[in-house]
């Protein structure tokens, strides 16, 4: 198959599936956190300001795993370095190997961030929910609960960030791709 077509197919499949699969677990996590937030407000209506503030900051942290997937899929659509290279060298011979490497890199960049962020998003949703429950039970301990929550969220976020950085490296500074296109001679 023409390497240009191969890279195009991989980009389309990967960008769609990245955000589709990557959005599942943040949505589940946020749903769980909001459900527990409503429960906590019903339990302690006086503390609703504190509870909803913590809930929204927690949601922003959970949301960021979905944003990583969104960034990767938008880059694959609008700023795809593999596609740009293939377009610039369209019709040139000897691009088969580079096309295969590009095909694999694009697909795996999507798989990395989607599967890598599932655990983080679910875990963050669970711990935000638990923190809201804790706030409803012990509003006096709110400073230490929220501090521990944010530090814990940052730690749980790291696996997703590692996956995100690896998938950006696969797209932008991929040594295998650089080697494959240097063999083509251009």
């Amino acid at each position, binding site marked *: 198959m023409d390497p240009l077509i191969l890279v195009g197919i991989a980009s389309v499949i990967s960008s769609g599936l990245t955000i589709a699969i990557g959005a599942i677990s943040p949505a589940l996590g946020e749903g769980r956190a909001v459900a527990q937030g409503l429960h906590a407000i019903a339990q302690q209506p006086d503390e609703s300001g504190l509870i909803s503030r913590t809930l929204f*900051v927690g949601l922003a942290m959970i949301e*960021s795993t979905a944003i*990583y997937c969104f*960034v990767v899929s938008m*880059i694959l659509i609008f700023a795809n370095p593999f596609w740009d290279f293939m377009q610039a060298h369209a019709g040139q011979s000897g691009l088969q190997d580079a096309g295969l490497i590009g095909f694999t890199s694009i697909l795996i960049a999507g798989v990395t961030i989607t599967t890598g962020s599932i655990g983080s998003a679910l875990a963050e949703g669970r711990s935000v929910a638990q923190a809201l429950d804790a706030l409803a039970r012990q509003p006096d301990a709110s400073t230490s609960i929220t501090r521990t929550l944010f*530090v814990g969220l940052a730690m749980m976020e790291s696996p997703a*960030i590692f996956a*995100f*950085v690896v998938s*950006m490296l696969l797209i932008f500074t991929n040594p295998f791709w650089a080697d494959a296109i240097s063999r083509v001679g251009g």
Partner: protein
Amino acid sequence: MDMSTITPDHLVWWQWGMIKLNATIVFTWLIMGLLTLGSWLATRRFSSGPAIPRWQNFLEIIVLNIREQITEISRRDPNPFIPFIGTLFLFIALSNILSILPAYHAPTGSLSTTTALSLCVFIAVPYFGIRHQGIYGYFKHYFQPTVFMFPFHVIGEISRTVALAIRLFGNVMSGAKIVVILLAIAPLFFPILMHALELLIGLIQAYIFSILAMVYIASAMQLHDRQQEPGD
């Protein structure tokens, strides 16, 4: 940030032989200058009377809050830590907040800056630990509970330093990226919302970076205290 680069390191503005002046360095200097100038201007007219200048009030709120957080985590006098932890927080927070300016590239969106910051933490942990309990007392905890734990302690310390750097870099970089992408697709209203979310995440990351640095330092100092308690 351009859509096809992931760090502002590639944006070279001036070059003379081997010496390059890229966006990361320039904006780091800008933040250093702003912090120094701001502190100098604000501390010029300090008063302890009932009517205090507006800027003094502002600085007092920041410094008092940082002191409070440090005291709550370490349960000891915050004075030795506040120059280090406070600088980390102010630098990262200002660097992330300024990203609302056009044509600005947050230096924390470059892996070299965040690595440098987390290396500072990596060095500060043994510095405070040794100063508190001596060289022998500090390095003893690497061999607790047995000698075989030594490599795991070392791996743990290196991996948490790497995680500190990559966490900040990944968050700031993805925030800058999403705004660039949204500006290309829907330039009118939606990027503002994402900018607001990015500012919130930038502040949370500044908070988390300095809190984690303090937690690591405090854990290196507290290990010793707990062993000292009799009958424990």
